[in-house]
């Protein structure tokens, strides 16, 4: 069991893309966090690896990784993969879909959302959890990404509806590995960003300065976001 840093505040979301496993130290932390949460806690045994790094075939250089970084290490994570290439829902779990979903540069698959145990819980009011939600949109919208496909426990549908997303189920919930899973296609708008940000306790961007700078060369676009 890996020991993760105790939450003390001061989390910023970093965005990494263009790296393969082994090519960035933060990414290594992310793979270890994923192993702890998805293999050790959630018992997704098919993902277990002897080196305790949870890595799958979609962790190529095209994947976009969001890492919630505390000064002592990673406390949260999520991953985005383009629907134009291989992705989980299309390639591994198509049986979850009873109807088609759009694929394109504006539609990305959102997976492996997780928060380290030390950063969960009421005392932090779920900050890292909400930060990741806000970061998803702050990264996506300036890039023209407005739609996501996800697989999750059906109880998440109401949460995303509350955050202002339009959520469309793609199939009936099914039991997979003992857990209920439903595939959905979601649309976000600027209103969604507003609602999502309002659900956080802290105002301002969830993304780190360097993450924001990497999104667009135009300073004006960044200003328009906040």
């Amino acid at each position, binding site marked *: 069991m890996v020991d993760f840093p105790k939450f003390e505040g001061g989390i910023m979301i970093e965005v990494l893309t263009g790296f393969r496993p082994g090519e960035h130290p933060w990414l290594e932390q992310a793979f270890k966090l994923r192993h702890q949460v998805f293999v050790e806690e959630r018992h997704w045994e098919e993902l277990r690896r002897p080196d305790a790094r949870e890595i799958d075939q979609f962790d190529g250089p095209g994947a976009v990784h969001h890492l919630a970084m505390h000064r002592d290490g990673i406390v949260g994570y999520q991953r985005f993969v383009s629907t134009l290439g291989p992705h989980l829902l299309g390639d591994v779990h198509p049986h979850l879909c009873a109807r088609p979903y759009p694929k394109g540069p504006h539609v990305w698959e959102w997976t492996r959302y997780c928060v380290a145990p030390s950063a969960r819980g009421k005392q932090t009011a779920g900050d890292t959890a909400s930060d990741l939600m806000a970061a998803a949109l702050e990264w996506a919208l300036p890039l023209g990404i407005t739609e996501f496909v996800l697989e999750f426990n059906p109880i998440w*549908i109401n949460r995303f509806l509350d955050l202002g997303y339009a959520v469309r189920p793609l199939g009936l919930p099914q039991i997979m590995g003992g857990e209920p899973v439903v595939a959905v296609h979601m649309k976000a708008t600027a209103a969604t960003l507003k609602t999502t940000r309002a659900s956080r306790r802290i105002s301002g961007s969830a993304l780190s300065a360097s993450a924001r700078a990497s999104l667009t060369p135009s300073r004006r676009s960044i200003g328009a976001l906040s």
Partner: protein
Amino acid sequence: MNRAQFAFDAILQIERASDPGSLLNSIDRASSQFGITGFCIAGIPALDPFDALLHNWPRGWVERYLAQEYVRCDPVIRRLKRTDQPFLWSEAPYSRSDARAHRVMNEATEFQLNDGLCVPIYTNGGQAGVSFASDQIDLVQEDRAALQLIAIYAYSKARDLLRPGSAVEVEPPHLTRRELEILKHCAAGASSRKISDTLSISHETVQTHVANAARKLNASNRCAAVASALRFRLIS
């Protein structure tokens, strides 16, 4: 039945509802396909009282439930707080020595609410539940999955349309005495010809009353009108 497609269509109807009455009708129509006779959408605030947002359960049962504060000892509520998956009322455990729990489950049956499917709902504002009840529940896994999706969107829409704290009980449609009388004859299997003979009114008049009743009940034909009237307990 293609349950996925059915659920998708039901969700579309629910999202289009513009007032509590049409929302209730959409939920009722969708759930009746699974043999459900009534539903209840309720929030479970951290402290009581139980917040019934929208339902079509017998008023007598809801009144008794609130007056007796059954939310405190209802095994369904207890299970609801501890799970994120839909479950049958008959799957909500309680010990036989728990007299109050036993009483709640028993008294519900007096209103033909013998069993139900309870769908837990989790939102950023807290927890809620949607129960679908009937005198007899016979659901396969895919039925439960479809009802779970319907419940999720029904709750979201109910929250949109209703202020929290204002329970809305939609009145059943108001049928005239004559319309009810004729529907009772229909329920007994009488043809329009036979009804017109029995009541000494013209055949056309019978047809008109049936059509009016069907329209008020949002039913597309005589058979559906009878089913609807039975469900609203307008006739027995």
